[in-house]
């Protein structure tokens, strides 16, 4: 556990989503944001309000009362512009990419690129391909991409360097909705062809 400045603590953990859920469940006073990363949870507090989080550094995910998050299915049209490149890099054909991508269960590990953008872990090994050498200046809303250890869905048009394999009509982000984000850390996601 280390300090991230005066008002925040960074806690190393093997399961950031589960630790985040536990911290939120305990409803400790003074906490403003609990932000999972790939291997950490950042706890940001109001000035002078820091609760004692020493327990969190020792907390183990198997102490979690139940699995955190919801189960979601997102239907994808697998017709992305990088589908054939990904197939070549993965050493399979296009149907193989679809079979691999739809055959896994992913977990929303953390967010950060844009509101509603979740980094999903659980990508089958052959699909862990590099980012595009030249990022696109505009990736359309709903584009399904992957790169490195992660897959995810672009919640709005934005620049992006991931390999695009498909597209969904599912709304990932709506600031007026409750909750505004479809995906929250700890949620489990399956992709299905549509």
């Amino acid at each position: 556990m280390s300090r991230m400045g005066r008002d925040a603590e960074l806690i190393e953990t093997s399961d950031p989503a589960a630790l985040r859920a536990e911290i939120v469940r305990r409803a400790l006073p003074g906490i403003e944001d609990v932000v999972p990363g790939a291997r950490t949870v950042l706890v940001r507090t109001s000035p002078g309000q820091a609760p004692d989080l020493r327990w969190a550094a020792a907390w183990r995910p198997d102490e979690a009362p139940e699995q955190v998050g919801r189960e979601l299915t997102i239907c994808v049209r697998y017709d992305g512009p990088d589908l054939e490149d990904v197939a070549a890099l993965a050493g399979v054909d296009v149907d193989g990419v679809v079979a691999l991508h739809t055959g896994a269960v992913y977990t929303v590990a953390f967010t950060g690129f844009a509101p509603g953008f979740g980094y999903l872990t659980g990508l089958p090994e052959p699909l862990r391909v590099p980012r595009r050498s030249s990022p696109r200046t505009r990736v359309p809303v709903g584009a399904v991409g992957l790169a490195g250890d992660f897959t995810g869905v672009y919640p709005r048009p934005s620049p992006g360097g991931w390999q695009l394999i498909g597209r969904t009509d599912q709304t990932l982000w709506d600031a007026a909705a409750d909750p505004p984000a479809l995906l929250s850390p700890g949620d489990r996601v399956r992709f299905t062809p549509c």
Partner: protein
Amino acid sequence: MLTIRSVLTIRSVLTIRSGGPLTTVQDRGRPGWAHVGVPRSGAADLPALTRANALVGNAASAAALEVTLGGLVAVPDADVVIALTGARCRLSVDGVPVPHGAAVGVPAGAEIRVDAARAGVRAYLAVAGGVAVEPVLGSRSTDTLSGLGPARVRDGDRLPLGSGGARPSDDAGPDASGRPVATDRAEREDTWVSDGELDLDGVRAGFAARQVVEPEIPPEPVLRVHPGPREDWFTPEAVETLYVTGWTVTPQSDRVGARLDGPPLARAVSDELPSEGMVAGALQIPPSGPVLFLADHPVTGGYPVIGVVDPDDLWLAAQAPPGTVLRLRRLDS
């Protein structure tokens, strides 16, 4: 008796004749959403926003205009009380200079001008009642990174002002109970805008007692820095370099962060950092040089944080124009 409540039903509008290089609506931001990718955002110089709101009698949560480098021209359609804090911009009403850091009465139709900043970057123009654009996730802040909140202020915009920004007038119509809004003097004094402050040839400052001492914007700011969680990813020499170097703020700086120019900081650990949560004040060190995160910083980042500027000093970075040389002083861990 005229109640404050009946006054509060009057709403007015601030028409923007010129938005300048960058004017945005800002309040204290939207904490609590970082886990779904929403930055906190909010005023880059939070203490200056707080002073401006206090001067005009607003709640601390009210929204004001963050005027970057000046250049704002605006006209209210009702009598209002305003205050300007933060960057030292000449403030005038119908051409008459009015003081910085003071509550000032402005008659309906008068032109408010916030001229180019002589010191600092971001001035805060608060209007009694607050800027009442529609909140998004509990905040009226424009987030330049995530695109949440109102669009940046543009020429011709008509910004709604919240309740409390106007005094009663003869044509204000009935209040909620159906009775006409009374306008006699004794009742006006129930409200916080009296005739005295607005009975003006041109404009003069009312609320003379409501003035704050604005902190000096230093030409060579020194920021206190807490050792960061990844300080040990850098060589001891690099850590020393961080704290003895004068860092120049580059023109690529914005509400996301102040980009700093200086010597390279050698890494002791060359691994890629798995993404982790970020805070305002974090000194993140990508190969291109330090970025000091400000209000619209991303919620997670993949470069190591060597140190974190103390929240009480963060406003100094928000007010440092490109070319400013700033120094960092390490606090004991």
